[in-house]
């Protein structure tokens, strides 16, 4: 019996090659998409879960607002960890990371390699994160200064060996070279981790003014004792600020309590974030690795489900479409005594086999597309991950679920045929006005329209960002990283580059309005004595004379720094936003003050010499904050305005100068526009993925539609014949058949519009600067869908309409 099921199933598939191909390919594409997204989501959800005691590890986040400047970050003061451990028995251990030193130059052979996955950590790091070691004792590894723990592949990279405990690496900092002793080697940190260090240096080597309770420069993790409710523990942070931070702040500001600070609209709040939530839920600044987004996990899950549903709906519609042709087989089987149950089994076996073939092809597609997908999604997923225990049962079950799901409707529908009616050919073909089928088609269209609207909105927002007036010119600016490596040669380097053909200006400053550059904030006040009312916390950037010109910024009032004025060393430029926050209409000539370097010192006076037109120095997701500029030397980056046409010639020339002025130091450069784009990488990624999925969804929906149109035409052959005999023209018929589908598209659109509007508005909320969703986007999406649907349908409609009516009306 079973053999017979399979035999008939395969013969049927083979007999209707076209249908089978559409059916199998449609389902395969759906399954492949679903698998890819499952891989992606599983990966996203698995972050940091492998860490031992992950449920007890928490990171402290800080929310600070002082005078208009909002800080929302992953870092705390150096004192917070030790003080919490001292005061609260719930804290089993704490550990801190210090990453503000940025990249390190490490010697390999005769050259220095720039390593960016580096940190300094407390000796307790391995007590909190129990990372598996393959050499040395991690418990004591970071107890002493000048010690370092490296990963397995780093050991291989530098020594071609993993047994490197006791060996030394050399780190260059300016002119000095410091040897570090390798005290332990750990296994490579898994990629599903929110940190990705290759080197973990001892905290004892951090040069820091310890004990600053209001400087937030350390990432602090707490390992809480088992059974501690972290939400309840967070309440202790108020006690902590009152006990420690308040007395410290009172040295600088006249303030009687933390409540006073709060009442004046400022805040200093801390919270705990569970380790396993960091990757998907963090929107805090200064994450070690770019975080994912739970929002995208939800969106993609929904999309995967939608696409799988679309594919299943197609499968049903196509199978039902074919049923008319198989009605006779059903009739004969029934006359021969086949039970309805057996027939249902027959059809379910068929659909399961089709689904099985689809799965194999889907896996093949998945395998072929994976590199591309990895590229778009910035992942390194492999098909092997599918074999991870979590998804395996799902994978094995999938063809059966899809088979039963997709096969059940035609199975039940076909097996219901009355044998006599079928064989005599007088069967009313029924199913023409099926609400279910119309519902399914409307659902397909609604989904397609939703995805198209989503894609258009994402793309428009991205284009808006790219073309928005930023207040600076990101184009044709070449950035040379680690300019500090030039040491005393930096001025010479700048001048020699400026002398080259095609270089119009240049500036040395670590601060740039794009990612991968420095940030620093200070609090200034309008009066000499700071209180909670008059203080404004603002970005304080150290720049040189040529900065404004090179960045293409504009001075709207007053003047730029100038060598003609001797006293510019304390002069300050502020932005329009800053001016507004300070409450000045014309700030030029006014003064602002900063507290002295040590408690008790007199305030430092800064005369305002000019106002810079506002420029976006953070992502457009954030509202513009206050910023000021001072003259000084922060030689982290050298930026040059160049003529892009010459860049191919210029870069080798600049590299040559670099090599001679900073021998042995790695040369690396980037274009400012690329760094700018990087700030929106996750949106761009989402945009690209959205396009891919929309195209896929529409493609799958069209496959189904094609089948349906064929079916409709087949079902209505007689009607079409009659209409033609009565004088209907080809265009009458085409119009009639297409009109039915057009109506379904319209209903789909009506359903999709509010959903799309709601969803896309929610997405846009993430941007402080965003587009309005124009009505034309909705119309365009509906029209595109309509057009694609009609193209698909018209082909079948025309075929049906031009057929000779004589054939369809012959009844003998």
């Amino acid at each position, binding site marked *: 019996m079973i053999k017979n099921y399979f035999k008939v199933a395969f013969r049927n598939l083979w007999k209707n090659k076209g249908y089978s191909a559409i059916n199998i390919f449609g389902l395969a594409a759906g399954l492949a998409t679903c698998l890819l997204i499952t891989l992606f989501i599983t990966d996203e959800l698995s972050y940091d879960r492998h860490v031992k005691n992950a449920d007890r590890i928490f990171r402290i986040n800080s929310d600070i607002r002082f005078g208009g400047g909002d800080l929302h970050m992953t870092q705390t003061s150096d004192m917070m960890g030790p003080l919490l451990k001292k005061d609260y028995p719930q804290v089993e251990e704490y550990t801190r990371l210090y990453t503000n030193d940025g990249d390190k130059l490490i010697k390999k052979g005769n050259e220095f390699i720039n390593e960016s996955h580096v940190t300094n950590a407390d000796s307790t790091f391995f007590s909190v994160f129990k990372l598996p070691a393959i050499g040395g004792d991690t418990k004591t590894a970071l107890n002493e200064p000048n010690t370092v723990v490296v990963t397995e592949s780093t050991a291989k990279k530098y020594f071609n060996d993993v047994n490197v405990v006791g060996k030394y690496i050399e780190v260059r900092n300016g002119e000095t070279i410091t040897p570090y002793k390798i005290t332990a080697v750990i296994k490579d940190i898994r990629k599903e981790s929110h940190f990705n260090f290759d080197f973990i240096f001892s905290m004892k080597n951090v040069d820091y003014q310890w004990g600053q309770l209001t400087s937030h420069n350390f990432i602090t993790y707490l390992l809480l004792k088992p059974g501690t409710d972290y939400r309840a523990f967070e309440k202790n942070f108020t006690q902590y600020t009152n006990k420690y931070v308040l007395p410290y702040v009172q040295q600088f500001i006249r303030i009687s309590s933390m409540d006073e600070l709060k009442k004046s609209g400022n805040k200093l709040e801390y919270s705990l974030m569970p380790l396993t939530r960091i990757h998907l839920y963090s929107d805090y600044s200064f994450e070690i690795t770019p975080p994912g987004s739970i929002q995208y996990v939800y969106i993609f899950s929904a999309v995967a489900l939608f696409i799988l549903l679309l594919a299943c709906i197609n499968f049903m519609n196509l199978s039902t479409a074919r049923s008319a042709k198989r009605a006779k087989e059903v009739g004969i089987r029934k006359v021969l005594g086949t039970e309805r149950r057996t027939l249902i089994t027959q059809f379910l076996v068929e659909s399961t086999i089709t689904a099985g073939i689809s799965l194999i092809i889907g896996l093949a597609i998945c395998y072929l597309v994976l590199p591309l997908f990895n590229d778009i999604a910035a992942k390194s997923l492999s098909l092997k991950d599918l074999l991870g225990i979590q998804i395996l049962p799902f994978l094995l079950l999938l063809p059966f679920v899809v088979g039963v799901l997709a096969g059940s409707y035609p199975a039940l529908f076909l097996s219901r045929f009355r044998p006599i009616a079928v064989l005599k050919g007088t069967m*009313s073909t029924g199913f*023409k*006005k099926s609400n279910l089928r119309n519902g399914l088609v409307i659902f397909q269209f609604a989904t397609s329209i939703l995805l198209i609207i989503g894609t258009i909105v994402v793309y428009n927002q991205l284009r808006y960002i790219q073309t928005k007036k930023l207040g600076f010119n990101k184009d044709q600016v070449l950035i040379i990283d680690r300019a500090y490596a030039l040491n005393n040669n930096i001025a010479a380097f700048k001048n020699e580059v400026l002398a080259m053909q095609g270089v119009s200006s240049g500036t040395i400053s670590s601060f740039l309005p794009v990612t991968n550059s420095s940030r620093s904030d200070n609090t200034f006040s309008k009066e000499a004595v700071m209180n909670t009312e008059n203080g404004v916390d603002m970005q304080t950037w150290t720049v040189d004379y040529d900065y404004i010109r090179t960045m293409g910024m504009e001075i709207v009032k007053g003047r730029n720094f100038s060598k003609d004025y001797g006293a510019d060393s304390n002069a300050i430029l502020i932005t329009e936003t800053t001016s507004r926050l300070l409450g000045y209409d014309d700030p030029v000539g006014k003064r602002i003050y900063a507290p002295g370097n040590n408690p008790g010192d007199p305030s430092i006076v800064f005369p305002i010499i000019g106002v810079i037109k506002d420029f976006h120095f953070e992502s457009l997701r954030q509202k513009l904050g206050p910023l000021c500029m001072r003259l000084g030397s922060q030689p982290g980056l050298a930026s040059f305005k160049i003529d892009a046409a010459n860049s191919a010639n210029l870069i080798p020339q600049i590299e040559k100068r670099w090599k001679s002025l900073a021998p042995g130091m790695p040369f690396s450069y980037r274009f400012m526009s690329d760094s700018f784009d990087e700030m929106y990488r996750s949106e761009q990624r989402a945009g690209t993925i959205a396009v891919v999925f929309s195209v896929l969804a529409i493609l799958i929906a069209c496959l189904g539609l094609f089948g349906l149109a064929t079916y409709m035409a087949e079902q209505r052959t*007689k*009607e079409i*014949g*009659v*209409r*033609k*005999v*009565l*004088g*209907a*023209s*080809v265009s*009458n018929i085409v119009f009639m058949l297409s009109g039915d589908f057009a109506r379904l598209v319209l209903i789909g659109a009506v359903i999709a519009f509010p959903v799309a509007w709601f969803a896309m508005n929610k997405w846009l909320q993430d941007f402080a600067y965003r587009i309005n969703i124009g009505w034309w986007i909705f119309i365009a999406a509906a029209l595109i869908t309509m057009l694609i649907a009609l193209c698909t349908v018209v082909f079948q409609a025309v075929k049906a309409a031009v057929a*000779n*009516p*004589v054939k369809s*009306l*012959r*009844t*003998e």
Partner: protein
Amino acid sequence: MIKITDLEKVYRTDEVETVALNKLSIEVKEGEFVAVMGPSGCGKSTLLNILGLLDDPDSGSFIFNGIEVAKFNERKRADLRKRNIGFVFQSFNLIDELTVFENVELPLIYTGVKPGDRKKRVEEVLDKMQIMHRRNHYPQQLSGGQQQRVAVARAVVNKPKLILADEPTGNLDSSNGNEVMQMLTDLNEQGTTIVMVTHSEHDARYSHRIIRMLDGQTVLENIMV
């Protein structure tokens, strides 16, 4: 009204060539009621399809109302057809999704009659066929005889000069069959030309003249008296 001369029609499939009409010549005068008889496969239906401008001949001449239409293209044929010819089929060929009224109205829509006029004319003809009370029913809700009356109503609503009937009583019992034949006779008496294909000698007796066919040719013509 109809004059066909040396008409030929051959159906070809990959392997078989079937001659449906073999140099057939027939003339039908205005106001005549002609029955076409013959065994299955003799070419009756092919003849009817060509007369109805649904199919085109391979060669020969077909003069309809004084115009040579054998070489007309699809569009011209459709135009001529919808204004001049009504069809009655054995299996009624009503559209299941449309009501009686809508089925009868269809030819008027395709000839571009205004909605107001359409209503009047449909009601007129439904009245005449005595199925006015069924105007809002669907074909499945009617008996065979009633369905065929609707089909006849639909065939005549456009006041065609020619009605082509393909075994109009084939699916009906004798009393319903007689009723339909009487309707056709009445129409003929009011001036409509009728060509009817039938297997029934009884039905053929309603006509003025019987054309007997075999293997695509006329073999005999009986004049009825």
